[in-house]
């Protein structure tokens, strides 16, 4: 037995009054796609070749009885079928006046044109102007589950795009007579091309009970633009109580729109959220504002707000500018209200404004950077400004020289107005020679770095001016071999590649302890770090190095050259200690070799995936860091993943991380599905984040009930550097009611997985 029709097929099934031949016209074509098809294809209905005339605008009528008078007034009776271009009308009797091109039918009719299907009482149409008026009708947008009834419909056609104007009409995406939600409006306009609808004098009804009156609003007919009015969400949480957010979407013009969302929270009050977007060929701008005037949960404090401005402009081929600035009223804002632009547990907001210049050899940038810290942290350095000018001849084709010259002038100031500040000028030039052959590759690179600082530092509580210049060379030699061999497994023959690499790096020691730390911090030491030239970020610490790195990567490809497995391993061997340090000698290197770093990604079968990475300290004989994940994945809505993460001593701290996570989502029957995730901190034996939810989905609405436990971070009123107490938790039940059905994609379960603080990531993503 063929499996039951999927929810989407059930929901967008055409109503029973649409006769079969009619569905043949533009059957199941979704509105946006339909428009493209209609624009150039001649609609060839049941016309045998011999009779077909060249003109496609002919009108064809099949009927039981026909009567044609002198002044070409024709009338038809008895299951009359009229076809004209892509319009199809089926009725009992009709009149057609060829001179005026006017067609009329009374006594019930069915009309469809591949975009909208209508059953009505009577129709007056004009074949020349492609307009039609139907009254007392119900309608259905072909290919979606949008439908409704109306007292009148006027169809106009402007250069082949149809727009519909219903009056005294209803709109819903729920089939059946008692739709869970429905809109009744004085008038509803729909435009096939733009994919949005506009209602005036509208009334929202839930289970036939009028709930809300809205003078005018626009709503999306396809998911082409933001999902707008019709997606209210109702959730409950321990922190905010019952929450109801109802976005109003205003499609002001093809290139700018606005969304206003009142968000009611039972424990806090009503927050207003607004977003404006503007787009044209040369620039893109977006503004977001969120304001909760009076937070009932914290009555003695002021209003809580968030604003954000993002603007990108391409002035010409060489110049462009970009601004991304945002700010919150208090450090707990994201934790309490969440945001599309930040994770609940973020520690700072990054702000920048910049102007960029580039042509094929030169690149320049003038940039200002600033931060808003979301917790009791050391005040950050700003760059006021940072100017960089770089020149690069680019990589040679097979073999040859490459020159590059990079300059940067930066002025640093601390945020908290402390007198510490510094100006730094840095210039470095490098020459490299590349030799590349199919089987091997060799490159050697020499660089000279010169940096000058003018600093004002605080040394044992008094202000000291200190200017320092640092110059040092850098040498890097890198070689790689490429091996291959046929590799057969199960029934396939693929190939296996093996690419060993070796790199020698030499940088002499320079005493940099008098240089302040502005933009340097130790870099992550994982597999990707093995072949890096520097072990500190930024320019304030350039570590001495006298080391060689050895590594190898092997991959297995199947017959269609898809990568099924990749395994990489590598280690650095130090000939001398690296004495450069950040603040204290903890960031020096005294071992003879780095940790052994390895990574493996393995697609065991079409549904089983395994991925892991590890750093093993051979001298201390312990696993410094490891992660692993195994997943069974049938498709986006049916998957189960188990992952494990362990870190011994995060850089610069004594904290260990030992965490296990389990997440999954499964479709039980076509309308029921479950999803959940669970992260446990084994070190402190506590649950970090957990969520288990059940979802019931019907054509036009879905309800999700989930139990959750998540971290409730509260840094309110804690002074900087004070030791942080363990966070409490916010447990609760969340009921989410979502209106769906406009666009054909169901609100997928993966969305539920993403909401958790840990989100969801496919463990293995090599080849597909």
């Amino acid at each position, binding site marked *: 037995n063929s499996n039951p029709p999927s929810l989407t097929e059930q929901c967008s099934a055409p109503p029973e009054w649409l006769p079969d031949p009619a569905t043949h016209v533009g059957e199941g074509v979704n509105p946006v796609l339909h428009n493209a098809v209609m624009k150039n294809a001649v609609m060839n209905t049941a016309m045998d070749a011999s*009779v077909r005339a060249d003109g496609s605008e*002919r*009108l064809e009528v*099949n009927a*039981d009885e026909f009567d*044609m008078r002198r002044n070409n007034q024709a009338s038809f009776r*008895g299951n009359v079928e009229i076809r004209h271009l892509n319009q199809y009308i089926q009725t009992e009797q009709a009149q*057609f006046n060829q001179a005026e*091109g006017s067609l009329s039918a009374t006594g019930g009719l069915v009309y469809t044109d591949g975009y909208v299907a209508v059953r009505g009482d009577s129709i007056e149409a004009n074949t020349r102007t492609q307009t039609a008026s139907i009254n007392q009708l119900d309608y259905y947008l072909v290919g979606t589950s949008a439908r409704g009834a109306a007292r009148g419909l006027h169809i106009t056609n402007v250069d082949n795009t149809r727009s519909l104007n219903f009056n005294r009409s209803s709109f819903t995406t729920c089939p059946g007579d008692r739709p869970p939600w429905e809109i009744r409006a004085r008038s509803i306009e729909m435009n096939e091309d733009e994919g949005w609808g506009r209602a005036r004098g509208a009334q929202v009804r839930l289970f036939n009970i009028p709930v809300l009156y809205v003078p005018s609003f626009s709503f999306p007919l396809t998911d082409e633009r933001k999902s707008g009015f019709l997606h209210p969400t109702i959730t409950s949480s321990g922190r905010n109580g019952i929450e109801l957010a109802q976005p109003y979407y205003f499609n002001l013009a093809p290139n700018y729109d606005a969304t206003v969302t009142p968000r009611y929270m039972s424990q806090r009050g009503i927050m207003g959220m607004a977003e404006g977007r503007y787009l044209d060929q040369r620039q893109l701008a977006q503004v977001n504002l969120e304001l909760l005037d009076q937070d009932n949960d914290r009555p003695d404090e002021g209003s809580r707000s968030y604003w954000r401005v993002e603007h990108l402009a391409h002035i010409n081929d060489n110049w462009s500018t970009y601004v991304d600035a945002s700010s919150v009223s208090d450090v707990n804002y994201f934790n309490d209200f969440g945001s599309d632009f930040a994770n609940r547990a973020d520690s700072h907001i990054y702000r920048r404004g910049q102007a960029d210049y580039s042509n094929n050899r030169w690149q320049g940038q003038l940039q200002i950077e600033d931060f808003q810290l979301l917790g009791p942290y050391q005040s950050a350095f700003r760059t006021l400004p940072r100017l960089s000018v770089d020149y690069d001849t680019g990589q040679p084709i097979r073999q040859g020289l490459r020159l590059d010259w990079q300059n940067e002038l930066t002025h640093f100031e601390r945020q908290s107005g402390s007198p510490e500040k510094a100006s730094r000028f840095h210039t470095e030039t490098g020459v490299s020679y590349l030799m590349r052959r199919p089987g091997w590759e060799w490159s050697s690179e020499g660089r000279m770095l010169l940096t000058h600082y003018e600093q004002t530092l605080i040394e044992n509580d008094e202000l000291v001016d200190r200017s320092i210049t640092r110059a040092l060379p850098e040498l890097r030699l890198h070689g790689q071999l490429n091996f291959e061999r046929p590799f057969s497994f199960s029934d396939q023959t693929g190939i296996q590649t093996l690419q060993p690499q070796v790199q020698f790096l030499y940088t002499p020691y320079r005493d940099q302890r008098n240089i302040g730390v502005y933009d340097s911090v130790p870099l992550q030491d994982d597999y990707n770090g093995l072949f890096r030239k520097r072990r500190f970020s930024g320019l304030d610490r350039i570590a001495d190095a006298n080391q060689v790195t050895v590594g190898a990567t092997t991959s297995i490809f199947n017959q269609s050259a898809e990568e099924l497995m990749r395994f990489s391993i590598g280690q650095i061997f130090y000939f001398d200690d690296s004495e450069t340090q950040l603040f204290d000698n903890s960031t020096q290197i005294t071992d003879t070799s780095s940790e052994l770093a390895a990574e493996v990604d393995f697609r065991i079968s079409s549904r089983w995936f395994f991925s892991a990475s590890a750093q093993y300290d051979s001298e201390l004989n312990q696993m410094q860091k490891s992660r692993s994940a195994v997943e069974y994945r049938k498709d986006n809505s049916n998957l189960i993943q188990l992952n494990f993460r362990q870190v011994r001593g995060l850089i610069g701290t004594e904290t260990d991380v030992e965490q296990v996570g389990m997440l999954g989502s499964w479709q039980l029957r076509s309308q029921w599905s479950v999803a959940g995730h669970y992260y446990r901190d084994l070190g402190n034996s506590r649950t970090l984040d957990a969520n288990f939810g059940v979802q019931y989905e019907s054509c036009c609405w879905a309800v999700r009930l989930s139990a959750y436990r998540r971290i409730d971070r509260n840094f309110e009123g804690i002074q900087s550097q004070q030791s942080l107490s363990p966070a409490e938790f916010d447990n609760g039940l969340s009921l989410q009611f979502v209106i769906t059905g406009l666009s054909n994609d169901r609100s997928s379960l993966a969305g539920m997985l993403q909401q958790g603080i840990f989100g969801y990531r496919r463990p293995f993503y090599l080849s597909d």
Partner: protein
Amino acid sequence: DVEYDSQQPIKVEADHEELDLRANRLTFRDNVIITQGSLRITADLLEVEGDNDAELGQGEVFVATGSPATYQQTVDEGVTVNAHANEIRFDSRRRVLTLTGSAEMRESGNQVTAERITYYVDELRATAERSEDSDERVRSIFQPRSNNSSQNEQNNGDS
């Protein structure tokens, strides 16, 4: 036009002619051509039946059959009607043409096909019905009037 044609005499030409006085029936066979002014009917066989009607008195009905029998007449300046069917009955006094058997009629781009078409020549009115036995319905096709400049559609001969 139609008025002028109805005054003209009806001429019939054919390869063979047969007169059956007793049955008061006249039969023409092979390459039969009936003309009356611009009206022209061609057929393989023509039977002329006497028909006396109370008010209209004595008259004839021409029953032309062919594969197919054809009809052509200029009903207005530059507007000719042509048609074909297995059998064409022409009642000269009532000025009614009845085409039966996969009948098709064309006039300035428009076209009607049906099992049976009745054409009232003087009123320039055509009606058609679906026949009970076959499920073949009346199909009519209208060219858009606005850009119907090309007249070629009109005088192409019958298939």
